[in-house]
């Protein structure tokens, strides 16, 4: 979990904010990725964020903390996850060799558990025994509920009522684990509104509570810290592909909501300039504002929920509603490090529509016996488009960030046999 300097260079200055201070360009000391990131929160939270930043800076250098983190990743979460050669899909598409990074095999069914273990360990170090979290698809909520049960912590998860409807299985799982799920009825009743409500809780109970944010979003240190806890995905994948093929992949593909699984799998490959990093956003059901969650296709720089990044918004700076068939991608902002990777041209971002994701989900189920989460199905959809155009000597890694059990209800509504 050591700091790297790859996010050290300056990107285009934001014309509204002016040029960032010189010191901000040097390193992500204050959580800047180029001009993106930062810490835009009410004063009441500033001390808590500084405390968290300090606690994390100490913990990441503490061998005991790292050992405990990796022990739980292995023994509790089930790491390392396999890198699986999808032979039938490869054969059918007739292009690049397709490997699937099987984060869907982790305990609780998605990559989210990596970050939850890390932050719960940190909360325990800070003496905070009450945990709050937001959740969209419910995967982060379930992972949070799980680590809170493991550590004996009180847990409250905020979830939009629209998402509770879409992901009722996960709501029940959280309750089984002893977590209180609080429905949020404001705005679009999805992930963004759940984060608003979690922030309101945190502002109120900040002295006793740790906010276990579930993606590479929010104010510093969250985007850096959450990325570090997920770096293990790319570290494993890089080793695994070198072992299996003796060379690096041509491309790594991941879906991007806030962007935690994507940054986790990308990060280790950033220095390998020949590896294309491809993030897949939710194209939803159309191109107009409100119909999708593709921040790089219609969004622009802005501040939402503590961080400066690409945001879907109107001209007056009001945050737009979003739509995606997958609750985990249904969010109007993207993690600030992705904004920076985008502007640098180091990663490219595309989108897959609801229908493409549903089709990809079915295809992976039929071809490989793996039902991916609808979020991950967006990455599969991009792979299906791209692999046939690639050479047979090319290798593609697709991060299957979660499994699709939670989506059975939506699949039942949308898939005709």
């Amino acid at each position, binding site marked *: 979990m050591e700091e790297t300097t790859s996010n050290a260079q300056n990107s285009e200055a934001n014309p509204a904010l*002016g040029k960032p201070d010189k010191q901000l360009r040097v390193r992500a000391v204050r959580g800047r990725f180029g001009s993106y990131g930062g810490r835009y929160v009410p*004063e009441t939270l500033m001390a808590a964020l500084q405390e968290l930043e300090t606690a994390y800076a100490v913990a990441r250098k503490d061998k005991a903390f790292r050992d405990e983190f990796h022990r739980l990743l292995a023994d509790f979460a089930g790491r390392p996850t396999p890198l699986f050669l999808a032979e039938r899909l490869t054969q059918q598409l007739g292009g690049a060799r397709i490997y699937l990074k099987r984060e869907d095999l982790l305990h609780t069914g998605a990559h989210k558990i990596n970050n939850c273990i890390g932050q719960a360990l940190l909360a325990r170090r800070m003496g905070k025994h009450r945990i709050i979290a937001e959740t969209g698809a419910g995967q982060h909520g379930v992972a949070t509920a799980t680590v809170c049960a493991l550590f004996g912590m009180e847990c409250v998860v905020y979830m939009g009522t629209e998402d509770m409807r879409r992901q009722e299985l996960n709501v029940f799982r959280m309750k089984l684990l002893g977590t209180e799920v609080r429905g949020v009825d404001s705005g679009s009743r999805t992930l963004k509104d759940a984060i608003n409500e979690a922030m*309101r809780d945190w502002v109120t109970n900040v002295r006793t509570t740790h906010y276990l944010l579930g993606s590479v979003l929010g104010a510093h240190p969250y985007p850096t810290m959450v990325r570090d806890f997920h770096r293990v995905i790319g570290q494993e994948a890089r080793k695994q592909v070198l072992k299996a093929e003796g060379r690096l992949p041509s491309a790594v593909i991941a879906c991007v909501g806030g962007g935690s699984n994507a940054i986790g799998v990308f990060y280790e490959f950033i220095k390998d300039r020949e590896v294309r990093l491809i993030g897949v956003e939710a194209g939803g059901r159309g191109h107009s504002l409100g119909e999708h969650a593709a921040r790089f296709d219609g969004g622009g720089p802005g501040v939402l929920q503590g961080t400066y990044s690409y945001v879907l918004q109107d001209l007056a700076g009001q945050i737009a509603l979003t739509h995606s068939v997958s609750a985990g991608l249904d969010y109007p902002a993207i993690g600030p490090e992705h904004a920076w990777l985008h502007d640098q041209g180091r990663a490219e971002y595309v989108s897959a529509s609801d229908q493409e994701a549903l089709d990809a989900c079915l295809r992976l189920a039929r071809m490989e016996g793996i039902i991916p989460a609808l979020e991950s199905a967006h990455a599969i959809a991009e792979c299906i488009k791209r692999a046939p155009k690639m050479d047979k000597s090319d290798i593609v890694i697709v991060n299957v960030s979660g499994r699709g059990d939670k989506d059975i209800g939506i699949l039942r509504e949308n898939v005709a046999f």
Partner: protein
Amino acid sequence: MAIHFKQRPGLVAYITCGDPTLDVSREVALAAIRAGADVIELGVPFSDPVADGPVIQRASERALQHGTNLIGVLEVAKQLRQQSNAGLIIFSYLNPILQFGLDKFCAAAAEAGVDGALVTDLPVEEAAEYLRAMKAHKLAPVFLAAPTSPEKRLRDVAKHSRGFVYAISRTGITGARQELAGDARSLVERLRVHTKLPIAVGFGVSTPEQFAEVGGFADAAVVGSAIVQRIEQNPGQEAAAVSEFLSSLTGTAQEAVGKS
């Protein structure tokens, strides 16, 4: 600088502009000034008001339903300035200002006769460009101090604030409370060490007793959600309802001060 508190405690009145319309907001502001408000905080509605409780969230939604934006809020400020010398502060989340343009916003606000601004989610660390633009247009940046702010932060908040400093009475979101937390008094005492500026206490002030209580240890009280609630509950008679409510606060305060 028109930020001046005539009495103790002074009264800072917050309204969410455009709730229910910009015209009503202007009338409510004028009524508040007549009822003794020294400073009007003109709230810019935002889609994701993370620091606000349900009352101001609902007001923001109502205001946004008919497209209230920063330009409209500045227009209200301009009209108020033509009729009053009261202090005028733009109260906003950062993103609407950012999209408008920091410098353009400051220029337009100064042009409209606004005295200052308070940006809820812009802490001093992130405010360098904002402070430059505010200074260039002779506007007063008002920053928040919280009960959780350590000494160093209080010093920075005091150092960069102009006009007054806004002390948050307790951790939490905006909204009326039964009692003011003991946090408020100690925060004002800690803050006083770092500044000679007036200190206004906000978050939860809603009764004549609380208003008078704030006068015992701070220079001014900010009343927000309690005003917005009266606007919500008195459609068609917003200004009269707010006027009556604020008069009850200021009247009681003067009485209490007189007795002591």
